[in-house]
């Protein structure tokens, strides 16, 4: 079974997603320069992967950044309010698209769950973090993590 999803593959996926869905052009999402930063007032969006290989793809960013991402996805102006429902929908869909593309690199992950968004991520018992990629979107941190359940682990 393959859990071998390389950092540069995740970066390529994230860049593709952001240039198509968020920015409308390339160049605004890059690898974070330096160690993974602490994200203040974070919000998380994740999708679970099920199959012979199970796990979770998680996106984490500051709540204020998630609001800006939702505005970009919805085509709203920078002063327009984003409702909680739209924030959950937009940030969750971002995780869904990133997770779906990561899943395509993992042939043993048979099924993608539905996206979830919350201030904290529930523990995935028995899972190991196999990937952590800090990104800079217009200077703001977004962290992508990939967790996989070890064979025989609970969860």
């Amino acid at each position, binding site marked *: 079974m393959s859990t071998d999803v390389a950092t540069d593959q995740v970066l390529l996926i994230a860049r*593709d*997603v952001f*240039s*198509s*869905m968020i920015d409308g052009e390339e160049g605004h999402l890059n690898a974070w320069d330096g160690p993974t930063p602490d994200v203040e007032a974070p919000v998380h969006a994740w999708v679970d992967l099920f199959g012979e290989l199970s796990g979770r793809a998680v996106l984490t960013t500051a709540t204020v950044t998630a609001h800006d991402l*939702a505005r970009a*996805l*919805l*085509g709203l102006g920078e002063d327009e309010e984003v409702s909680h429902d*739209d924030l959950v*929908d*937009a940030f*969750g*869909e971002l995780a*869904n*698209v990133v*997770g*779906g*593309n990561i*899943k*395509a690199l993992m*042939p043993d992950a048979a099924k*993608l769950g*539905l996206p979830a968004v919350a201030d904290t991520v529930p523990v995935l018992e028995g899972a190991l973090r196999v990937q952590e990629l800090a990104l800079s979107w217009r200077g703001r941190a977004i962290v992508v993590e990939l967790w996989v359940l070890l064979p025989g682990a609970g969860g």
Partner: protein
Amino acid sequence: MIRVLVVDDSRVMRQIVIRTLRQAGYDWDVREASDGAEALAAVRADEPDVVLSDWNMPNVSGIELLENLRAEGFETPFGFVTSEGSPEMRATADAAGALFLIAKPFTADAFREVIEPVLA
């Protein structure tokens, strides 16, 4: 005017699909459904010219929607717009009778590439 039914549990994604259709030059009459069950009811009530559907949805998924439509005799042209574009899913979609599968993220060009041959 071509009438399209856009099916996705994400309102945001439905909006993006509709926006991308317009960017691709398709000024179509658009209806929306938020899952496969709602879409099935919408097709039964008033069959559109084409269905663009997400795959992974609560209640009735996109592939179940397509299978149900075909089982009920609807030959509505059907395409997937989904975050999973693996060869296995493309083969499953094809076997079920889908005309195309657009993987998210997508561009207006990607829409034109698969929709133009269907319109021809």
